[in-house]
């Protein structure tokens, strides 16, 4: 067992996937000698060679478009998009090609492509480096979308994503890259598509993913001092959403608050609220509330603390939900 940062856990996960299957190739901007701007691919080109870990020209549509062709040739490409805000030049290839190839060919052409995207804010970056684009992908049939929140999941989920024959947008909460945890690489991972209760509680379920899981855990700890017992659920998979687990939790707590960095309007929180209020109509004691980034562009970083949901804002909305 080793203490690993999330960045290192991803690195180890990629390494394990490459060891297991020599069709796995990594591609992206600056992932070779540099090891990626977050060092997630550090050392992998050195160990696996330039044919399996390669720097591409600077063009995201080219990265995803050629990954599709490599997949048709039998490879399992893992693309790194350098930052969330730079995935949009590839958006057409992702939603109209990658997502649709399997259906278009009635399953004759599989697309085992993983698109890794460091996402979310909180690192004091300039414009386009703190986006949360998950809703744009989760609304797209044919894609799957997952987000890891901790080193253990990061290690296993990236391997599971690579092993899947479906195209997956793999979101990595960049501000958690440097947080550490014990990673038992011999352990048995949870299924990739399952949500997980990361803290049991009785009064209300906080539903989060990626960077906000830690924020919610912190909020739950703080709430404990005030005598409120909050459950925290890590969605892990954003498409498909694991509603059985969500329902099971909220049936017990009868109240839910969804927390994400992305803007609320037509975001993941809306979908979860819509489904919960439909399916648990007679069982809930409060409407599903949302704590999210505001419906503004991500602001210059000196304002990001106010833009991002934090412990206080979460608890503020929890209070409201508990008052119903």
């Amino acid at each position, binding site marked *: 067992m080793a203490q690993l940062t999330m960045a290192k856990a991803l690195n180890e996960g990629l390494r394990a996937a490459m060891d297991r299957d020599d069709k796995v190739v990594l591609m992206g901007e600056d992932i070779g000698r540099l090891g990626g701007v977050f060092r997630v691919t550090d050392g992998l080109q050195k160990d696996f060679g330039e044919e399996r870990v390669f720097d591409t020209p600077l063009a995201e549509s*080219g990265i995803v478009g*050629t990954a599709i062709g490599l997949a048709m040739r039998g*490879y399992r490409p893992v693309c790194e998009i350098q930052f969330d805000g730079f995935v949009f030049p590839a958006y057409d290839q992702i939603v109209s*090609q990658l997502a649709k190839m*399997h*259906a278009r060919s009635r399953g004759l052409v599989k697309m085992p492509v993983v698109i890794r995207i460091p996402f979310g804010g909180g690192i004091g970056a300039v414009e386009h480096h703190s986006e949360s684009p998950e809703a744009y992908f989760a609304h797209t*049939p044919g894609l799957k979308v997952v987000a890891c929140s901790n080193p253990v999941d990061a290690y296993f989920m990236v391997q599971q994503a690579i092993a899947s024959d479906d195209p997956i947008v793999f979101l990595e909460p960049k501000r958690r890259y440097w947080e550490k945890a014990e990673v038992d690489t011999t352990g048995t991972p949870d299924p990739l598509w399952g949500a997980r209760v990361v803290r049991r509680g009785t009064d209300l379920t906080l539903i989060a993913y990626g960077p906000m899981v830690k924020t919610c855990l912190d909020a739950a700890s703080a709430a404990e001092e005030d005598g409120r017992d909050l459950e925290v659920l890590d969605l892990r998979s954003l498409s498909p959403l694991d509603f059985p687990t969500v329902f099971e939790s909220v049936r017990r707590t009868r109240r839910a608050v969804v927390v994400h960095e992305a803007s609320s309007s037509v975001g993941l929180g809306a979908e979860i609220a819509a489904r919960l209020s439909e399916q648990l109509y007679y069982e809930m004691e409060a409407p599903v509330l949302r704590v999210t980034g505001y419906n503004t562009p991500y602001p210059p970083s000196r304002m990001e603390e106010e833009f991002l949901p934090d412990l206080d804002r979460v608890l503020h909305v929890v209070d409201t939900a508990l008052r119903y």
Partner: protein
Amino acid sequence: MTVPEATPLVQLLTPEGERVHHPDYDVELTDEEYRSFYRDLVLVRRIDVEATALQRQGELGIWAALLGQEAAQVGSGRALRPQDFAFPTYREHGVAWCREVDPLHLLSLFRGVSNGGWDPQDKRFNLYTIVIVSQTLHATGYAMGITKDGAVGDPDTGEAVIAYFGDGASSQGDVNEAFVWASVYNSPIVFFCQNNQWGISTPTATQSRIPLYKRAEGFGFPGVRVDGNDVLASYAVTRAALDSARTGQGPTLIEAFTYRMGAHTTSDDPTRYRLASELEAWKLKDPLERMKSFLYKQQIVDSAFFEKVEADADELAARIRKGCLEMPDPDPVTMFDYVYDEMTPLLAEERAAFATYHAGFAGGGH
């Protein structure tokens, strides 16, 4: 600006069917091969004519005719070796024919029954791609994979890729990215641009102020313009480019200079934007006529041959028509089945609800 040079055009057959020679490109085919080239041109045109008729009769939602582009497609399609892989647009019915894709598959797409339905890996011919030039990047990635597999170098077994696109398509970012990738990785790929002079109503001059084959120079690989109404030249130039690719010499851009003799699709009305006289001028360069003249001049055909080809075409047309009319509608519940390799619970739920709902109707419900 530099003074425009005369644009060189590789031609092996004049519009009158005269065989001419070219220092860099040539072909020597057997009489049998010459005849079979002609036969392909005729059959491919017949598929197109029949499909157009079926569309007019309401059997297809739309049809994108290849009328006028038979030589560019049959020439390039026949230059492919079995191990090569082709990435078409939505108009490559002639290439599909060379890859032995059943024309009924093409019709099933335009009828709205499927998105093609053939097995791309088996035919080594990708499904039609409708979003302009997306396929050029797929083709480039596939070609990169060939290199990774070490399947490049040998003149016999080396593999190559061909990516089709149009003159209008040349303006899209993606195809220019494909040029960057292919040249940087020196990938075994041929970019085959059919310049049929129009992108719907937009003339090629709105896409480029210089001949399109020159685009390749800017990316560091060769470009060549071929007479796309000359099946022999199209064959020769494509074969050379594919061989160059398969032996590790990297990409080539071919601009096949041709003409879209019909409408963009059956939904289009070209009288709104182009003069009838333009079409008339191009009719004199008809790809079938010139091959026919050539065969006559070579004295390697007789009327029995032409009768046989016509009979084959009639038979093919009849088969297509029958197959189209008999084509069953898809079972709508299958729309849930291929979205993912591993179906999601949401889709399973929707599929079940869908089945129940429609069963309700069948049972006279609602």
